[in-house]
């Protein structure tokens, strides 16, 4: 395992969302990849600027849906055909049209559960501790400030070099983020 870097990263603070997006684009151009932006509200352009890759969540939801679909149908098939076959008005034991509503419901149920649990699994929530909160000014990220944090695990990260780069973006301030 690689040695843990001495700090979590360096964080620059901006006044406006457009400054943050512009800074993120510059950082990306400069070759930084391991970074994250923080803002009081979602900024669509920011996700693009960070180069947010498409997530694996849709695939997880699809698999969940397929499991729900097959499971829901099999549950009814097992009950009405295998375990306790009943002749109901001469209909075939495997009366698929009657099984569709429940199959649909279980598809939605398992897909929705897969969406929630998959989302939590992929983004690591709930997260009781995150280093960015060690910077006291970061509390403003839920009010009116916009932050860009370049993480020390980025291969291009160099304490002095990155500090100089962030300062060149004309932020309000740049702070070290301890672990």
């Amino acid at each position, binding site marked *: 395992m690689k040695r843990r870097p001495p700090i979590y990263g360096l964080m620059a603070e901006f006044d406006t969302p457009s400054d943050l997006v512009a800074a993120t684009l510059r950082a990306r151009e400069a070759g930084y990849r391991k970074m994250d932006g923080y803002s009081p509200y979602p900024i669509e352009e920011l996700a693009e600027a960070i180069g947010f890759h498409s997530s694996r969540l849709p695939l997880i939801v699809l698999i969940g849906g397929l499991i729900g679909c097959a499971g829901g149908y099999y549950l009814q098939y097992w009950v009405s055909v295998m375990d306790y076959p009943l002749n109901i*008005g001469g*209909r075939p034991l495997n*009366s698929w*049209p009657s099984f*569709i*509503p429940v199959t649909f419901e279980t598809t939605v149920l398992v897909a929705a559960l897969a969406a929630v649990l998959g989302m939590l699994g992929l983004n690591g929530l709930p997260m009781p501790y995150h280093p960015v909160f060690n910077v006291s000014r970061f509390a403003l990220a839920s009010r009116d400030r916009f932050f860009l944090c370049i993480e020390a695990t980025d291969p291009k990260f160099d304490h002095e070099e990155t500090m100089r780069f962030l300062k060149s973006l004309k932020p309000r301030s740049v702070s070290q983020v301890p672990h």
Partner: protein
Amino acid sequence: MIHDASLPEAELQQFQKRSLLVGIVGLALCGAGMLFNREEFFRSYLLAYLFWIGIALGCLAIVMLHHLSGGAWGIVIRRLLESATRTLPLMALLFLPIVFGLSHLYEWARPEALGDKILRHKSLYLNVPFFLVRAALYFAAWIAVVYFLNKWSLKQDQTAAPSLSRQLELLSGPGLVIYGATMTFASIDWVMSLEAHWFSTIYGLSFMVGQVLGAFAFVIAVAILLSSRKPLSEVISSEHLHDLGKLLLAFVMLWAYLAFSQFLIMFSGNLPEEIPWYIRRQQGGWRWIGLLLILLHFALPFLLLLSRSLKRDAKKLLAVAALVIAMRFVDLLWQVSPAFHPEGFHFNWMDLAAPAGIGGIWLASFARQLKGRPVLPLHDPFFQEAVQHGRE
């Protein structure tokens, strides 16, 4: 800013001429066919008529839905929809052949119907004079709503009065109720009564959703074809197509939901007055047409329209819209033709000639209506916002 919102006249003129030619040739062929096979002529004509009037009425419903809900998606296609609704007087005229073919089409319209106990009871409603009075009422109601929707919309182009939007909104609420009520009964009269012993309470709604779905596919196709030409090329963007694609997806699902609801209830009840309708549609080739509907009217468009990039791609969305339009025809074929041919799949050459004939004339009339007015409602209070939505 766009100042001139008229389409290239010469091109439309040419399209109009060609459509008219196809229409006349198609109807002439059917006219000749009538001399040899009167029964089949009326059957094919009814099928073709239901298909094309469905698109016109679906457009009427979408215009009113949009006046009530608002949204950029509707403003950019409103004039296309309105042009389609103005073909309804023509459709009233084209209803006449059906009037003369009633005894060929509907068992209740034949004298021997009185020998059937159930049809005798139903004759209080299902009799020729009352049928004609009702049809006249439907057309009168539709044409009246179309008249005012179009009149006020055009007036807004000239006066730019925002109060007209409110007026259109106030008409559209009752207008949709009128459409729902008249179309429920029209679908009972014109289609459900082909098998007069059968009944389904969800039929009217299911028929209307089919119309709106077909109209959405049609207007998406027209918008995409026109979006390569001025002035629509400056307005319609992938953002609008995305919205329209989502609505198409919603109506594909709603159609499947209603079609399945009717099937599930009749399958579960398995009653002698309900289930024969489905038994007839599972005999011979009709079973495969039904399967085709599940696959190509629901499953394929549903899966394709889930994709975000497909909905934003004009060419691909056009292909899906074309598929939906074609399947609308197959669905009507599956609803109508087994009533005449319960033994199995049957396709007469006039089942193609009649849709081409009515369709040619209908499209010519549609093109003529498109030419007559600005293709964008430039003075709608939300027009600029709708254009801006496309540029985001």
